[in-house]
């Protein structure tokens, strides 16, 4: 078993304690709700889009440290990106947390702190929930997202 600190990195603990971009977003263009029924994580992601670019994003909800920090770091990571960039980043992040053989991926920046999740298969859903929810918002899919 890998070291616990590989999973609970200081950046993750910090974003869990003080999540960035947390709270409702007035006049959001897109939003979606996500739910991880297994552990009770609940998220709402709301996005403002300006000429195809994410101009603002916020999230609300509750959950474990991994899901909260993932949502927080995601909001930081995608502000200013195009909707196409968001979809590409989703794929990269998905590979990061699920693929044991994935090579280092510079495009993810700070998000690489979640690489440790791949050694804890039961926690992948926690890390990916915010991203699935964001994707549903971007695709304007109003059905609540569930990781089950």
């Amino acid at each position, binding site marked *: *078993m890998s070291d*616990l*600190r590989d*999973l*609970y990195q200081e950046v993750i*603990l910090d974003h869990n304690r003080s999540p960035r971009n947390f709270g409702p977003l007035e006049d959001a263009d897109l939003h979606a709700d996500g739910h991880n029924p*297994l*552990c*009770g*994580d*609940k998220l709402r992601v709301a996005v403002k889009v300006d000429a195809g670019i994410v101009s603002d994003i916020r999230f609300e909800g*509750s*959950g*474990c*440290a*991994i899901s909260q920090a993932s949502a927080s770091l995601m909001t930081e990571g995608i502000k200013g990106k195009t909707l196409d960039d968001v979809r590409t980043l989703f794929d990269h992040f998905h590979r990061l947390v699920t693929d044991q053989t994935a090579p280092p991926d510079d495009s993810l920046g700070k998000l690489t702190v979640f690489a440790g999740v791949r050694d*804890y298969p*039961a*926690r992948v859903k*926690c890390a990916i929930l915010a991203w699935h929810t964001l994707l549903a918002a971007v695709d304007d899919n109003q059905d609540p997202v569930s990781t089950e």
Partner: protein
Amino acid sequence: MAHTDPTVTDRTFDIGRIRELFPILAQRVGDKPLAYLDNAATTQKPRPVLEALSRYYASENANIHRGVYALSQRATDAYEGARGKVARFLNAAEPAEIIFTRNATEGINLVAQTFGRQQVGDGDEVVISTMEHHSNIVPWQMLCEEKGARLRVVPITDSGELMLDELASLLGPRTKLLSIVHMSNSLGTINPVRRVVELAHAQGVPVLVDGSQAAYHMPVDVQALGCDFYVVTGHKLYGPTGIGALYGRRELLDAMPPYQGGGDMISSVTFERTTYNEVPHKFEAGTPHIAGAIGLGAAVDFIAGVGFDAITAHERPLLQYATAALETVPGLRLIGTASDKASILSFVLDGVHAHDIGTIVDTEGVAIRTGHHCTQPVMERFGVPATARASLAMYSTTMEIDQLVAALTKVREVFG
């Protein structure tokens, strides 16, 4: 840290010898000894159960009933013998009152789909409680939706006890069934089932009791409880998965329509008309889990051999020890503090989600469950998204509790 507690040691009960009978317990998780504290989800299997399964497949396997050859007769005798063992274990009046099912969930669904569909109609009511497992909620919701009936829910107190006055006031002429858990899987509460049955029967309401958790912690006597149905699941009785049992009073079972159609549940079949077999076979269509039933028979024999006096004498002080030990953990709050409870410690830790607790204690070799435990209404009642739950069995030790408490210190180290 103290690893032995004299109050837990009992002369009639040698914990070392008991643990040796469960081969899985000796393993390590990484470099730590396994502390298996997820018994409310499933218990481990002792050698007599493993040997019964292996012996059946190695020397007795044949399909049961109607075989004229010796091997089939032996398999039939073993299967029906297991039914007799379960009947004795629950003190049913006769083996025919025991129907083998896949698990407790199937037992409840069987009653909902046969007795329920026959007895519950438009405007009728089914009563359950807030502390039910989803398996004792959803089958009744489905039935009520189909029939235009109403599901009523008995509330619970802040300590997790059933509100008996409220229960009594919910029972009335429209109530067609009360379905209630004997011991809560997320709170540990033991419900006063005998009293509940008295209240229900006074209104002419039959009672189903979900004994999934109770049956491996305390003796169950269905005739003394007076209940009409009682369900258990084998894998929580130190037996195999995929096998459970439904007890039903003979006169109710006789009057109920069959559950599934198929072989074994019939007396004769023509394209014009089929007549159904007698109980219990009427409710056991198709080739059953023969090995599972035999394994369950071995499991209840094993429990009876150890004896509930010894099991209770071990588990009760261990629960007190664990409760006291967990109460020393800063920021820990126990959920479920009923005065009559057994072997379950559900808790939350300030500032740390249950799922994070589960992952971190796992790295210390401690297996506990985290989440809603298939009791989302209980989580809502207590205003928590999830709890961490340690649950005990006859082989649990004070050392494992100490290992859990030490692992919770590690959680604090990580989260600060």
